[in-house]
């Protein structure tokens, strides 16, 4: 029996708003950005000059290298911290308290991102709480230079992304049926072996989704490195913003943004094997 006409149209009708939204707010602006990136700032003529500048100028290259380094460090540290945290929340905290524990964990994120970054700057400053604790306890004679360094940028990022990863990994752990563990135990596996060979592989999609989100959000973030990094090195978003400030060089800024987008796409392709929403 053939499907009726209204029945065939219904899926399209349902998906059309989303398609239109994507077309108007992503595809068209993206195409406009591509076109803009291929024009010259001064006279608007067509050119590849903006892309050539990125490959010719070592300072621009350096910004991409810095971005990749910082983002990779942040992603790895965030995963290493978030997994045990999510595990404790999912396995040790009683179910009736889990919601409360999650709310408490994300409570600091109800404050403004900018305010939180400036707060970190004060905490990590030479006269800040961290250095006062380190020198006061006798661990160090002189304050450490933490604020306005790459370390400060990483700390600011990790503080934010650990929570994001905790939520994705927690959701993954909660979806795991207890039968997996029982089956592993029946087959003679101890807790460590069960974790390494059963739990970890099954939660890998959650880790990868969280890690990918961390990578994407961190590599495009301007606020944290700008406030905490002290501009002692430039990351790609800062380099992009520099082109806009006084000179209003939107073509070069667009080209740099597209190059950054290509890097994110490559990261997606690398991770795509694990980035599956459905459970197989």
């Amino acid at each position, binding site marked *: 029996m053939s499907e009726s006409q209204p029945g065939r149209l219904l899926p399209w009708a349902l998906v059309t708003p989303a398609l239109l939204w994507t077309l108007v707010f992503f595809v068209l602006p993206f195409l406009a950005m591509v076109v803009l990136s291929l024009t010259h700032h001064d006279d608007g003529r067509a050119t590849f000059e903006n892309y050539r500048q990125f490959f010719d100028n070592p300072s621009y290259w350096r910004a991409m290298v810095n971005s990749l380094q910082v983002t990779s460090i942040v992603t790895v540290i965030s995963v290493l911290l978030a997994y045990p945290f999510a595990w404790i929340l999912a396995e040790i905290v009683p179910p009736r308290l889990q919601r409360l524990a999650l709310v408490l964990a994300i409570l600091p994120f109800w404050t403004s991102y900018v305010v939180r970054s400036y707060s970190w700057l004060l905490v990590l400053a030479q006269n800040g709480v961290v250095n006062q604790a380190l020198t006061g306890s006798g661990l160090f004679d002189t304050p450490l230079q933490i604020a306005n360094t790459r370390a400060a940028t990483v700390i600011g990022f990790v503080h934010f992304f650990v929570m994001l990863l905790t939520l994705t990994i927690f959701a993954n752990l909660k979806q795991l049926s207890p039968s997996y563990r029982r089956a592993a135990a029946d087959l003679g596996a101890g807790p460590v072996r069960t974790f390494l060979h059963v739990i970890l592989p099954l939660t890998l999609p959650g880790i990868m989704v969280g890690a990918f989100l961390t990578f994407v959000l961190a590599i495009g973030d301007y606020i944290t490195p700008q406030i905490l990094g*002290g501009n002692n090195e430039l990351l790609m978003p800062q380099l992009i913003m520099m082109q*806009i400030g006084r000179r209003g060089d939107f073509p070069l800024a667009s080209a740099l943004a597209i190059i950054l987008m290509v890097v994110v796409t490559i990261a997606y392709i690398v991770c795509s094997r694990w980035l599956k929403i459905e459970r197989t």
Partner: protein
Amino acid sequence: MKSVLRKHARASALAAATVALFAASPVFSQELNALIWCDHADPALLQPFEEANGVKVNVKEFEGTGAGLAIVEQSQPGDWDVMVIDTIDIPRGVEKGLFAELPEDQLPIADIFPEVKMDASTVINGKRYGITEKFGYNTIGFNNTKVDPADMQSLASLSDEKYKGRIAIYDYYLPVIGMAALALGKETAKLTEADLPAIRDELMKMKANAKLVGEVTASQTALATGEVDILVGGGEWVTAGLAKENPALDFSIPKEGAVLWSQALAMFENSKNKDLALKFIQYIMSPEGQARLATSSCYWGMPASTKAALSADEKKTLRFDEQPGFLARAQPYPSPDADLDKKMQDIWTEMLQAQ
């Protein structure tokens, strides 16, 4: 019946609340749309004008001429009435046909410090397109209890080993490149591409001594919290606003000179409220407006008008009476053409990336 009454009562209450809401809000017959820097967003500056004229001033903040001009390009003609802009960038707006001629006879031009009138930028083909409203110096800001004030009389101190790790650099390439040029004995108004290698080396020396390169808030915070003792590119715009909380913050105009920054007001050619826009400019340039602008909560700066109604304390904080000497030693903001501007930004990027 009861429900009908209740419905009427509810409707009456809603109407009364609406009337009360409108009665409580000021009624404005006109609105002025201003593209501004953060100092113009201070209610203490805008309210007297709004109340005196029964108008609402809608403001949009931006940083950097490029960003400001981009906002204008993305707007409809007539969306904006006035704009705050670097005085040296007024010709950029005039070239694009954005700005209207200002009537000189209706503005207190004679009250402005002669050095900041900057007619080369504000008067084009005999027509005035902008008026300087506020100025100051990109120079050396410092904590006078932590450094030797005598050292702050020379730009050479900025690359002195003695101050290594105690310096912040203001993150804006034009004024700091101007300071590097001054340190090399060059005139900021005559910089060419041939000067860039030496300026680059000077910037690298400064960077090697610096702990951070920060935008306004970050560099101000660093100086105020003691993270650094010196701010390259700082001046009264950093120290004056903090003078009450931290009187040790000071600035010098070193023997090599300082870079003069100045901001101006311009009126849009397509403004639908040119009379109101002119009134706004007249208010800002009035003694009262000048005082309020100079002491804006966002940042302080010298009023362009010699007749600004500042208190004795405010004048002392801004070092008002020392201005003739300061202005004599100050040099203008570098004003490169597009090509040189790009090259300057590139050496700045290189400096930021240097480890």
